[in-house]
């Protein structure tokens, strides 16, 4: 009895999948950090790097899918192993989407940068990006640390991003009304904010999955939610 499988290569196969999740997590974190920094600093070179990182993210996800499917076919994992493998497939999907969204933000950097000084228009996006980054970083760390309670809390913290998104929306709307020349830049920034908000949602999914992998229990379907944007912003 112990932590190791009788068949050592089973451990290696599971280890490889877990390493890929952790690599994808690190990559997602650096892509989100890079894309927001590129946006706020109009840093085109950095934006380019984020865009090219997305190809690496996609390749990792394909590798993880292959490995997970092969492992299921070869080993027929049970109980916690089964949850880990299926959970990894799902988490990889969310991480890959986070990469896509970061890439979307990065691709707008050139366009926003050309119009007006985006820094002045994006105070609240800065704050929102920080929150998102904390969430992305947190979910990776807590899963690595196998801390189910922290993951449950982190999932509920997504609420703060949603609230922040509402305030960004209102702020950008104000700038656009003040001066129509801001409309192009603000529209781009609005999409960026939406992308950040979606990243938060994927973090929530990852937290839910990770919680299930660790405990075998599903978190309740509905987390407390204040939908402030419903009345004033598009979904």
């Amino acid at each position, binding site marked *: *009895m112990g932590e190791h499988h009788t068949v050592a290569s089973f451990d290696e196969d599971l280890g490889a999948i877990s390493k890929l999740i952790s690599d994808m997590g690190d990559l997602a974190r650096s892509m989100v950090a890079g894309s927001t920094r590129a946006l706020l600093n109009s840093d085109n070179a950095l934006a380019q790097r984020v865009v090219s990182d997305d190809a690496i993210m996609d390749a990792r996800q394909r590798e993880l899918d292959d490995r997970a499917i092969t492992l299921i076919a070869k080993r*027929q994992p*049970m109980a*916690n192993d089964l949850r880990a493998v299926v959970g990894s497939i799902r988490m990889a999907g969310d991480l890959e989407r986070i990469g896509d969204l970061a890439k979307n933000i990065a691709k707008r950097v050139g366009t926003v940068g050309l119009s007006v000084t985006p820094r002045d228009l994006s105070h609240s996006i800065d704050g929102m990006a920080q929150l998102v980054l904390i969430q992305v970083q947190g979910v990776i760390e807590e899963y690595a640390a196998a801390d189910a309670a922290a993951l449950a809390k982190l999932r509920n913290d997504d609420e703060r991003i949603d609230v922040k998104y509402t305030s960004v929306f209102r702020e950008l709307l104000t700038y656009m009304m003040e001066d129509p020349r801001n409309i192009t830049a603000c529209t781009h920034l609005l999409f960026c904010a939406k992308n950040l908000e979606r990243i938060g949602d994927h973090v929530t999914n990852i937290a839910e999955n990770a919680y299930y992998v660790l405990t075998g229990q599903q978190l309740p379907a509905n987390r407390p939610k204040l939908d402030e944007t419903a009345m004033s912003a598009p979904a």
Partner: protein
Amino acid sequence: MNIMTEQSLENAVGDKMNAKSNEVIKMRGDKVGVFYGEKQALFDVNLDVRLNQVTALIGPSGCGKSTFLRCLNRMNDTIDSARVTGKITLDQEDIYDKSIDVVELRARVGMVFQKPNPFPKSIYENVAYGPRIHGLAKRKADMDQIVESSLKKAAIWNEVKDRLHEPGTGLSGGQQQRLCIARAIAVSPEVILMDEPCSALDPIATARVEELIDELRQNYTIVIVTHSMQQAARVSQRTAMFHLGYLVEEGATDKMFTNPDDKRTQDYITGRFG
């Protein structure tokens, strides 16, 4: 509108009865212990076998699962040094009571073994043997009927109907095992015990037997010992995990294989044991 109401009422009653039948305890082990001479092989096992459900007994070799299975129809009586303590009931009746006729008990609680073991007789005689010694058929026509329906229930009729008088040992392994299941069914048992019924079969024959187990569940209560975790997960509704002579954990199969409570169960089913 009235018909609808009556129908839905009927459904509701039906559902309730189904739910209830899931709760009926067909056999119950109460603090069952088994000694082989001085050596104790099974300790204080409390386990319920539910009506019309498949209960799988799993655990590493020597854990006591076959020993427990063999207690359920007193097969351990055939081993001189074996001694059983505690209580086992069938429909709340103590099967180790002096008044119990063991031959009759084994007709009510049938058994299928690991290796198919047809008698060196014809296919027909293999199935007819039990009903004959129990006097279940008065005329040849009745016996023919029992043989046919048993072979049909064991999903082997179409393969053997034209050669009923050929030797049972001439069948393939998978067919022999289904013949043995037909033989067990022929005496109309209430419970069927299966001790690794597929371990000597190829995957296709295994799939047939598993499909059969699922069908038999409608009319019989089944207890199966298996070393294949996937098989236990596929065929059973309840799973009991044994280790070193103790019952470690018993519960709904779906839960046992996705999120077991006991670490030993988890280690065993995920392949981390020993």
